[in-house]
Structures are given as structure tokens and as C-alpha cells.
């Protein structure tokens, strides 16, 4: 009997030891991308918050770099009702999914001041009218163009096409235009810009599928022609992601490139780039009946619905999205802030490598991807179909009609059909 008791105590003691000590300060966990310059900035800012705010310690919870893996990990944690991390960095396209599943907190109760933020970024942060995230930094699709070969940026899609053909035929460059044509999310961002250029879209304001409308078919036909008829876009681009596209432009092989802001600093590096100081950026031009457009990317911050310290978590979020922190991010990580007022300031102009006036133009034209909980499945359907049309396996009309059918079926199955969510 005695032995059993002693043994039992040992087990309990061992267990208690294994669980670790408890401390007095409140511990907040923050989870986001923590590599390279981004990681440095995050660590600095978290440390600063810890200094300024007494009694709180913020820990950085490291996640894998690949967006897909981070997404998977978040889904696992939040679905398991884990209380940590308290604050998460989310891709813009995940917010509806997480909000609809009840994994992140609505923020209106904290009365966040959102007037200063980019409308497109806010649109991505809302689900059923409520705000679920605060924009942290934005990525926008940019049209990079060669200033040594052209006098000005093309003002319409038709002009872009002409310029590209002319330069390619004159052997000034190997390719006219390069974009991310591999079968992945990057392809959708390119498609989105073409859609907007023709006045089309993927879902309309009511959440109905409009990707098989005539305007959308014209947009896809334009893309397919660019690859297969005009050949201004090389067919190899259909396997390229951001880096390969950048290399093509960087080596002087393309007159136009459609890529993200991160490429700017790398392209200016004279030791590696053949186009340093010979390029500028502009929004993707409009076609018939459309608008210039830039696909909106970037990240936003949200609060874990099971967090033990939601108010504190919101404080951290407000701190990280404050203007000072955003300017610092711009300077150290070359990431664009989503606050409109900052683009009038000289501090941001000094901090960002990209000239403000060029960027401002693009930001005005930002277009978010559809905010729906099943976005990743919708995107996959589109990716497959669009890619088939671009590789010539299917005419654009047929591809988009099939995609539309599948997307409608998916939305119905998920209870998200035409009239919006049924709840």
C-alpha cells in the first residue's frame, strides 16, 4: 500500500515537473512569417511592444514559410480550439474562411478605427458585413515596364499588346510580356487583373458566379491569344512562378512583367540585374469596358476566437498596424502599408524603395479576390480550367462555362449559393 502511494506521488510529481513552471506576466503568442528581413522587423516590433506595455510578454510562434503549410497548421490549431497563438498573420484570401468557421473574432466590438485603410484591403477583411481582421501590409500586382525602350506606360490593354509585339518583333526583347502562368494561385491574380480590365469578375457583389459571362470569356481569350497567337507571352511562362518571371525581366528578356513589389529592390541591384534603373511600374491597363486593376495580396492580422486575452490581443494588433510600425516595415522589409494617409507623407517616401506616385496609382486600382469561405476550392477549379485554356487544350468559352458550373455546384453544396450564406 505504502509503495503504491509513493509510486503514485512520483508519477504525479513527474507529471507536474514535465508541465513546466507558471509565470506571473501575461503571455501573448503571435504567429506569422518570421524569415529574413520580415522576421527581423517582427521581432523588433514585438520587443518594443513588450517594453512599452507593462506586464505583457509576446512570444513569436514560428510557422513554416510556405503559405500552404502555414494555412494547414492554422486550420489544425484553430479547429482544435487551441488558445494559442492569440494573434495570427493571415493571407488576405483566408480571412473569410476563418471568419465563417468561427475561428477568429469579429473586431467591431473593439471599435477599431479603419477609415484610413485601403478600401480593397478592408473588403477582404469583412465577412457578412463584420470586420474580422486589420490590414497589415499589402501586395499589389504591378506592371513593370522598360523605361529605356518605351516613353510611357501603356494606357490600354490594346496598347500594351501593340507595344509588346513591336518590341518583340524588333528584337529589342525576347518576350513581350511575362506573367505567372503556372497552375497555382499566382495565375488567378493575373486572371483577376485581366478580368477587371474587361469589366468582368469572378463573383459579383451578391456572391453569384459571373466568371462565365461574355466579358470574362473575352478576358481569358485575350490571355490565351497572348500566349498562343500573338506569342507575346512565352509558353514556358505557363510553368513559371514569381521568381522565374522576375529572372526573365531581370535578364532583359521581357519588355513587360507583371509581378509583385518585392521584385523592385532585387531588380535595382546593379550587380545582378541587367535592367537596374531602367524600369518603372504602373497599374495593369484597362481593356474595353474595364478598369485598370491590380490584384490585392498581402497579409492581415486577426484574433484567435479561443484566445484567453482578446482585449490584449487587440492592443497588440493596433500597435502593429499603427503608422510608425508600418513605415518601419516599409523601410526594412520593403512592404507596402495599407494606410492611405501614409502615402502623402515624406517619411514613407523616404522609407520605400518604390516611388510613391507610381505606387499610389496602383493602389487606387487594387482589386481583392472573392471573399468567400470556400475560396481555395473555387481557386483550384479556376486554376485547372484557365490553365487548360491557356495551353490550348480547351477553348476559353468552354473552359469558363465548365468552371462556372463546378463553382456553382460547390457554392450550393456549401450553402453559399447565389443569395449569399444561408445562415
Amino acid at each position, binding site marked *: 500500500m505504502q509503495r503504491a502511494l509513493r509510486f503514485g506521488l512520483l508519477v504525479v510529481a*513527474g507529471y507536474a515537473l*514535465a508541465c513546466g513552471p507558471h509565470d506571473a506576466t501575461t503571455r501573448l503568442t503571435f504567429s506569422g512569417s518570421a*524569415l529574413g528581413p520580415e522576421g527581423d522587423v517582427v521581432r523588433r516590433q514585438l520587443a518594443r511592444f513588450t517594453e512599452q506595455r507593462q506586464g505583457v510578454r509576446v512570444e513569436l510562434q514560428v510557422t513554416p514559410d510556405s503559405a500552404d503549410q502555414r494555412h494547414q497548421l492554422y486550420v*489544425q*490549431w484553430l479547429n*482544435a*480550439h*487551441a488558445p494559442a497563438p492569440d494573434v495570427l498573420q493571415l493571407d488576405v484570401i483566408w480571412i473569410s474562411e476563418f471568419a465563417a468557421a468561427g475561428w477568429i473574432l469579429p473586431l467591431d466590438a473593439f471599435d477599431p478605427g479603419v477609415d484610413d485603410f485601403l478600401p480593397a484591403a478592408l473588403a477582404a477583411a469583412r465577412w457578412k458585413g463584420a470586420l474580422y481582421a486589420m490590414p497589415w501590409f499589402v501586395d499589389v500586382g504591378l506592371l513593370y515596364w522598360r523605361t529605356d525602350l518605351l516613353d510611357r506606360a501603356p494606357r490600354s490593354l490594346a496598347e500594351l499588346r501593340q507595344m509588346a509585339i513591336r518590341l518583340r518583333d524588333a528584337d529589342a526583347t525576347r518576350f513581350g510580356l511575362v506573367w505567372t502562368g503556372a497552375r497555382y494561385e499566382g495565375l488567378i491574380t493575373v486572371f483577376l487583373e485581366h478580368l477587371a480590365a474587361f469589366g468582368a469578375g469572378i463573383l459579383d457583389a451578391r456572391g453569384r458566379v459571373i466568371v462565365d459571362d461574355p466579358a470574362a470569356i473575352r478576358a481569358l481569350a485575350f490571355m490565351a491569344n497572348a500566349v498562343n497567337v500573338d506569342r507575346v507571352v512565352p509558353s514556358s511562362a505557363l510553368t513559371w512562378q514569381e521568381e522565374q518571371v522576375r529572372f526573365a525581366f531581370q535578364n532583359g528578356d521581357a519588355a513587360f512583367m507583371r509581378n509583385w513589389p518585392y521584385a523592385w529592390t532585387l531588380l535595382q541591384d546593379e550587380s545582378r540585374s541587367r535592367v537596374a534603373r531602367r524600369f518603372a511600374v504602373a497599374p495593369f491597363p484597362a481593356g474595353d469596358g474595364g478598369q485598370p486593376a491590380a490584384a490585392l495580396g498581402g497579409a492581415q492580422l486577426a484574433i484567435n476566437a479561443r484566445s484567453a486575452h482578446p482585449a490584449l490581443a487587440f492592443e497588440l494588433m493596433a500597435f502593429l498596424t499603427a503608422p510608425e510600425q508600418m513605415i518601419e516595415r516599409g523601410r526594412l522589409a520593403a512592404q507596402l502599408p495599407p494606410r492611405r494617409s501614409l502615402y502623402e507623407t515624406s517619411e514613407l517616401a523616404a522609407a520605400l524603395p518604390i516611388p510613391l506616385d507610381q505606387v499610389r496609382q496602383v493602389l487606387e486600382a487594387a482589386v481583392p479576390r472573392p471573399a468567400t469561405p470556400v475560396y481555395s476550392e473555387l481557386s483550384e477549379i479556376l486554376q485547372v480550367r484557365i490553365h487548360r485554356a491557356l495551353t490550348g487544350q480547351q477553348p476559353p468559352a468552354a473552359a469558363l462555362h465548365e468552371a462556372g458550373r463546378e463553382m456553382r455546384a460547390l457554392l450550393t453544396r456549401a450553402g453559399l449559393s447565389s443569395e449569399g450564406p444561408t445562415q
Partner: protein
Amino acid sequence: MTARPAAIVLAVAGALLLAALLFPIYWMVVASLMPESRLFESRSLLPTAVTFEHYRALFDERDFLVPIRNSLIVSGLTTIVAVPVAALCAYSLARLRMRGKSLLLAFVLAVSMFPQISIVPPLYLILRELRLLNTYPGLVLPYLTFSMPLAIWLLTGFFRQLPRDLEEAAMLDGATRMRTLRDVVLPLAAPGVASTAILTFLYCWNEFLFALSFTLGPDRYTVPVAIMLFRGRYQVPWGEVLAATVLATIPVALLVLACQRRIVAGLTVGATKG
């Protein structure tokens, strides 16, 4: 002498088989000691350079001590819980009179054949409600699903093999069943109990699916899960992965070395039980 050629063939085949069984382990150890730069270039089967950089990295950069601790605790706790409870049950099944014994035994065997994936959904939902995900009890409970039947099965076999005379003598002397169990049977069955404990511990140490499904982060990952999740930026860090696999294998190898007779006894009793 027609036996000679046959014996030679057998010996050669046997040697080849043995080599095939041992070579991957040898290679694992050798490769874990190779510097990163030579890891994929070396063409020789013998180590040309030896370095401990991968092992150092495991503990300095990856804190590999944590998964090891977790595996030890979970496997240990499961064994400590499963074996005594199973022993009581097994003694009853082996020695005491009761109806439906063979049915019970068949039921236990059937349960051990359940595919693990088939019980993940409800276990996950229950553990989530009880807030036991990513905790030690949250793994011990699922581990009982396979360790309990295993232990019962093995121990029943061992108890059955024991000669009855000593027990009967003790009972004739007036001892109760429980006293007999404690003072006579258990000491006799100690090797069998040890085999069962070892096998139970081994199965828990190697378990992967439950650990993957019911833990959420590096603080509670067990060794198999931790190794699996070593993901580098662009490629798998093979040096460290191999070093980790060597470390994961060492306790297992030690157990096997020390207790190979007992392990074999456990496996065969489990299998030849009619």
C-alpha cells in the same frame, strides 16, 4: 552427399538476407556522421569523413530533447497503466472459471485489429471537448486502444504457460486468489510481464498516427512526429533527419539488444496462442 549443396545455398542466401536487413541501418548511422557537403556525393560505402555537426544541430537548433522527453513520458505512462490492468484481466482469463472466456478473448483480439484511422474522428472530437488535445493524457488515452488488447493478449498467453502446481499448493495452504496472484504467480510470470511491458513500450514509442492527429506543436510532439516535421526552406535537411532517426533508434536498439529473447518470447506467445 546431397545435403552439402543445400546447406551452402542456405548459408549464402541467409547471409545475403542478413546483409540486406542490416545494411540500411549501417548506412543510416554512417550517413548521419557525414558532413553535409559530402552527404550526397560520397560513393564509398565506408565513411570517409566523420562529423557530429548534425547531432549538435539537433540539440542546439532544434531542441530535440523535447520530443524525446515527450515520447518517454507517453510511452512510459501508457505502459504503467496498461500492463497492471491487463495483468489482472489476463490472470482471470487464464486461470479463473468464467463463462464466455473465449468470446472475451476473441473480442479483445478483434478490437486490436481496428484500423487506427477508424477511431480518430470521435477521439479527436472528444479530446477537443475535454481540452486534452496536445497534452500527455490526450495521447495516453488513445494509446490504450492498442496497448490494452496487446498486453491482455500477451499476458494471457504467458499466464497460461505457467505450471499450476505452485498456485494450487499455495491455495491448498489457504491463500486467497489475490494473495496467490501477488506472491506466487507474479514472481513466476515476471519474465512474461517484462516482455509485455517491453513490447507495449516499443509499440507506443513507434506510434505515429495518433501522435500526429492529437498533438498540435513542438512542445508535445513525440519523436516520430518531430522527425517527420523537420522541414527546411527548400529541401529536407537530411543530415539532421538521419541523426534524429539514429537517436530515435537507439533506445529501441538497446531494448532489442538487452531483451531479444524476451521479445521473441512475447511475439511467439502472441502468435501461437490457439
